[in-house]
């Protein structure tokens, strides 16, 4: 518990940094006024809008006003949607979240057994097949895999809907598309981590006790082999939630990736800022989860604080 509180405290400076970066980056990329007003607007109109948005104040004042609002959850209005930016972002969150989690589940279901198996069958035909497939899985571009899946499973055989969202069936193809690359990466990680662990002295000890190989592998080796994998996977999840533009576009999936890119193109500053913030918080949260899992898996950590 104390650990939990202390890590929450550590998060605050990170969030401040992010707010700082987001704030200035957006201001450096161009004049929002010229985007919000038509070409024909007069200088007077521009100046009025500038004044009303507070863009004439010194930059640090702007920052503090901005932060004061942010703390209350107010990221300003999206001028494209005429709604509070935060609402627009949060509306997209469930879709992104669902897709991220289901891709991770698919990846894990494939990668854990495949990684273990190719490690214990190292340098055999089976290992070759698994390692080969993971190279392939990693190399296949998402848009291509997505389109292939649509062509075969949606168009040809009509098993799954072509695109959209709303039902579990809609979730399947985009999850496979995203899950494949992650499964490939994860398999490779588990394989190499497992190989390293299997060569260690405590595994030799476990064997010398007369334990069955399945216990040696699934109890003694796996628990150790997963330790480095967990961190990377948690970060991967965060990236997924943050946006998977291509897959979202291919499947018309209403996620954060789409939203963010549209907002950047339109210079919808409020939405960009809100989205970046939410993504940052998600990354921090998944880091925390990774840390907690790490602690659960590795008893050595607790005592090193």
């Amino acid at each position, binding site marked *: 518990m104390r650990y939990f509180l202390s890590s929450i405290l550590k998060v605050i400076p990170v969030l401040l940094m992010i707010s700082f970066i987001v704030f200035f980056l957006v201001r450096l990329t161009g004049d929002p006024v010229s985007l919000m007003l038509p070409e024909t607007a007069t200088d007077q109109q521009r100046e009025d809008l500038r004044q009303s948005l507070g863009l004439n104040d010194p930059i640090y004042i702007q920052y503090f006003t901005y932060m004061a609002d942010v703390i209350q959850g107010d990221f300003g209005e999206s001028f494209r949607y005429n709604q509070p930016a935060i609402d627009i972002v949060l509306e997209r969150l469930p879709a992104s979240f669902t897709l991220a989690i289901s891709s991770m589940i698919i990846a894990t279901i494939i990668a854990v057994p495949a990684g273990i198996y190719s490690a214990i069958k190292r340098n055999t035909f089976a290992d070759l097949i698994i390692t080969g497939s993971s190279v392939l899985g990693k190399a296949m571009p998402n848009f291509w895999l997505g389109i292939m899946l649509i062509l075969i499973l949606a168009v040809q055989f009509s098993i799954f809907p072509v695109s959209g969202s709303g039902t579990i069936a809609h979730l399947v193809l985009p999850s496979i598309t995203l899950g494949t690359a992650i499964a490939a990466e994860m398999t490779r990680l588990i394989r190499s981590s497992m190989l390293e662990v299997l*060569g*260690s*002295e*405590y595994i*030799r*000890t*476990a*064997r*010398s*006790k*007369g*334990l*069955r*190989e399945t216990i040696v592998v699934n109890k*003694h080796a796996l*628990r*150790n082999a997963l*330790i480095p994998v967990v961190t990377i996977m948690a970060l991967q999840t965060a990236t997924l939630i943050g946006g998977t533009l291509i897959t979202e576009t291919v499947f018309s999936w209403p996620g954060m990736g789409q939203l963010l890119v549209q907002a950047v193109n339109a210079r919808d500053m409020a939405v960009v800022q809100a989205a970046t913030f939410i993504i940052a918080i998600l990354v921090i949260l998944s880091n925390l989860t990774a840390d907690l899992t790490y602690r659960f*898996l*590795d*008893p*050595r950590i607790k*005592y090193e604080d």
Partner: protein
Amino acid sequence: MTEPLLDIKNLRIRFRSDEGTVKPVNGVSFQVNEGETVAVVGESGCGKSLTSLSILGLVPSPGEVFEGEIRLQGKDLTKLKKNQMRKLRGNEISMIFQEPMTSLNPVFTIGNQMTEVIKLHQQLDKKESINKVVEMLDLVGIPEPERVVRQFPHQLSGGMRQRVMIAMALSCNPKLLIADEPTTALDVTIQAQILNLMKKLKDELNTGVILITHDLGVVAEVADRVVVMYGGEVVEEAHVNEIFDNPVHPYTRGLLSSVPKMTGSVEELGAIQGSVPTPSQMPKGCKFHPRCPIATDLCKDEHPNLEETLPNHFKRCFHMEGGSIYEQHKRETTT
């Protein structure tokens, strides 16, 4: 004559790789009787650990036993199926490994790792096996065993971990105990305790012990017989008193003279010249000849056999009948 507990005959282990084949154990033979402690000594890299791992069928891949027999009470272990071998491990044969810091699994408690082997080989339930663990930890001199049961390896010092390993190896009353440098991480008092414990076990249960060590003091104290290895072979084997009083092989003599004797002067501390050849660059002929003070042309070309020159005293050397040549040679070169 009764059958020995363990009979290793002409054991050979090879590692094949793209760079070629090396044979770090190349024709090792020795026996261990019930209730007997056989010390295996020799410099680093001479194949002691590999020999002992092969008894458990745990030679790390790509290494393999490609020739020879390892008989435990007559049964050839090299011919056993995997699950037959597994039933012997930790039960009839157990091993204390050389590396105490890394030989325990970091993510499981001591209790978990110890009960595992007890539950496996003895028909005990959970509570009984925990009691047994506590008893064993107590036996090897671990203070507060009830607490240690719940601790993780990283919470213990190297010496404590080594004692846990020893307790674990002894917990199923093995017929054969292989101890690879069991006391190196321990201070002298603990070392004595552990050696006593091993002695006791040997006397009470008639356990045969293979004791691998660099410490000739330990050898003198607990061994019945000594096997001296060099370059993957046995170069001398004899009763412990014979080895200390009448060492025949020049290598054994070198080893003995590199031990500071309690009474002896510092001059006696003359270690063997040169260094151990690696398995890939073993010299032709007698493997020890480049470092041997009495090597002749014969030693460079021919490989000597292990011969019983005195009763129950084996040596692999062309010269040396009771050491007279050596003594003579030494006298000649020093004057």
